[in-house]
């Protein structure tokens, strides 16, 4: 499978440190083209102003959660087919089900390694 490692990834997390950690993991697997947003509201603004190829979003955030962002993306005709990877510390079954129901492309529970993150991204892209 040919993956464009230069694809534009929007990374959404309210913790700057966690964005830095995930950005480092992405860098380790060759993804260097990463934009950041602090929450769902900021992410939607970024999605409206710039073309993104992939969204990686935390679940628990102030203003607009990852689940709310996912629903907003899926409800927008211009954005609805964007790959959406939910990253969260919430591994509870009902949360996974809620994200699946809302149309998440895949789900990754913290903590995770660069390899696991890469596998999830590849799995999503292989289905497109």
């Amino acid at each position, binding site marked *: 499978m040919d993956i464009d490692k230069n694809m534009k990834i929007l990374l959404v997390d309210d913790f700057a*440190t966690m964005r830095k950690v995930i950005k*480092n993991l992405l860098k380790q697997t060759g993804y260097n083209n990463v934009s950041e947003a602090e929450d769902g509201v900021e992410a939607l603004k970024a999605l409206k102003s710039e073309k993104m190829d992939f969204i990686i979003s935390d679940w628990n955030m102030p203003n607009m959660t990852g689940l709310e962002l996912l629903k907003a993306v899926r409800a927008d005709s211009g954005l609805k087919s964007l790959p959406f990877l939910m990253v969260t*510390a919430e591994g509870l*079954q009902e949360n996974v089900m809620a994200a699946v129901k809302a149309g998440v492309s895949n789900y990754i529970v*913290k903590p995770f390694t660069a390899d696991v993150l890469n596998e999830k991204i590849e799995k999503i892209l292989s289905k497109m």
Partner: protein
Amino acid sequence: MDVRFINAFSEGTLNVLRTMANISPVPGKPYLKKDGMANGDVSGIIGLTGAVTGSMALSFSEKAILKIVSNMLGEEIKEINGDIKDAVGEITNMISGVARKELELIGLKVLAAIPTVVSGKGHSITHVLGGPSIIIPFEIEDGLFVVDICINRME
């Protein structure tokens, strides 16, 4: 306290630090703590509800947390700053998440609040429940930290 709670938080701690910081802490023998003083220089605390009620805290010595966060970020951090506090909140959240997933497997659904972080020499930890808490001590090459649990199972 049910030993399964202690095991879940202990395993969660080992899992998170191995995966995110490439550090394997050595757990010590759990003991009972009767005062509210923190065992470290920076602490994260998270409230728990559902099948159990109470809270879990993590309290790190300065040296231990500087090493852990430096490893997580891939850059050397030399003092307790905003990055460190952010990371302590996130580590607390992740450990709680892994432990709660373990507890869900044995039929206990536990929900968590948003963690808060406190720092400074001699700060205190206020658990949701009063009374004594269980301390699980951990050692890494650069220092010590503890997991401090004060929870009751709901009937």
